[in-house]
């Protein structure tokens, strides 16, 4: 087997490893972003419970670290964001479709009811998102192994075919 073929196979394997790591990072980012939204919803709930703060002021006063964890783009102007829906539009979401749907539903229900019902709504969605986060966390090690295995095997397979 020529030296070039060996080098090519090694490059393909390396590419497989890189691809796998990229996909693993994306899965981890999805988990981190879900955690960010859980923290944000808890913050919103506390502000409603303690101060009955309107949504736009809650978002304006939120810790920038929490918003960045939710995927808020760097050049977003918080002064222009008046609702949770607008916040979602300014985020680069990498969460699962189920989580994204939960967030959209929460955006539709935030601010539409009185205090007690609003707190119950917040608790409901915090519970749902926390369950989703816990599921992702539990599955992450297995997903990492699966992603790396598939990627390396796929690229190894290509390398073998080419060799």
């Amino acid at each position: 087997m020529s030296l070039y073929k060996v080098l090519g196979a090694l490059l393909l394997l390396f590419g497989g490893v890189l691809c796998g790591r990229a996909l693993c990072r994306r899965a981890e980012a999805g988990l981190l972003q879900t955690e960010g939204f859980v923290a944000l919803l808890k913050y919103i709930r506390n502000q409603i419970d303690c101060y009955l703060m309107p949504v736009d002021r809650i978002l304006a006063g939120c810790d920038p670290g929490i918003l960045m964890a939710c995927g808020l783009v760097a050049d977003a102007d918080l002064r222009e964001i008046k609702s949770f829906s607008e916040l979602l539009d300014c985020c680069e979401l990498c969460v699962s479709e189920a989580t994204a749907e939960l967030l959209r539903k929460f955006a539709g229900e935030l601010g539409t009811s009185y205090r007690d019902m609003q707190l119950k709504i917040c608790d409901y969605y915090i519970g749902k998102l926390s369950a989703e986060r816990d599921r992702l966390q539990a599955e992450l090690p297995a997903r990492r192994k699966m992603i790396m295995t598939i990627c390396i095997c796929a690229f190894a397979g290509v390398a073998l075919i080419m060799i």
Partner: protein
Amino acid sequence: MRTVIINREEERTIPAFLEKMLPFRLTDAVRKAAEQPDVGIIEEVRLRRGRCASVTTGGRNIILDVVLGGEEMEGVLNRLCGGSLYAFSDTICRGYITLSGGVRAGICGRAATSSGKIIGVSEVSSIVLRLPHRAPEVGEELCRLIKSMGGRGVLVYSPPGVGKTTVLRGAAAKLASGSCPLRVAVVDTRGELCAGLDMAMMTIDILSGYPRGEGIEIAARTLGAQVIVCDEIGDTGEAEAIMRVHNCGVPLLASAHAASLDELIKKPGILTLHKSRCFGAYAGLSRVSGRLFAYNYEISGWEAANELI
């Protein structure tokens, strides 16, 4: 009876920030109604679920050919609350929302109650938008009156919608400005009294959203007010707070709903205050027929009111 006439302000229709919250066909109908030659300044806009909306101008009600559905009403309420209904649940249960610029929205609908207390309002059936108006020349009479009272207050009375809040606002502005301003504390429970006031050169302290009783006591004891201005008193609990403040020597300029002095003095809270001599004069307010910001004051002293008891 003294008549006070001032120039009419050029505020004929809905403020721009409020227009954005209302359906276009409603604001269009209001604009067209305001353009009619015999229509003055729009004082109120009334939205009704499933029924025609209307505007009020110069005490006259004009019905608009606009009917809003349930979803539109809910949408208007949501926008009035800035997308945060829970933040206004306390005031909605008391029947109003105060917006920026001193606009007060009266709210009514289907009340949910618990132990006789309103805990929520659903299926909003009417929204009444009261638009404040700047009338800087109003209130001169009240200023002269309260300065002549020697530490006793003045109570302005009239039926709803005549202009008590407008004259109190004008009086508060006049008392707190000029060459010898007084320290004026305004207990602005509903956020209407100080709307539109240019307060940069006024010695005025505002207690916004405070319950009247607590606000009056704080104004007297901790803010060192020389005059306290307050709208719509009458509650027995408020009467006790006012009496405590009266003992501190701080005069109160206030208003109450009543069509006549006889009706006013027989309200339990007002009667208590009258017997304590909190008020030295009662000013009955009425509008000069067909003219906005033109008022008649029917001034009655303490003795004249006492004869009615």
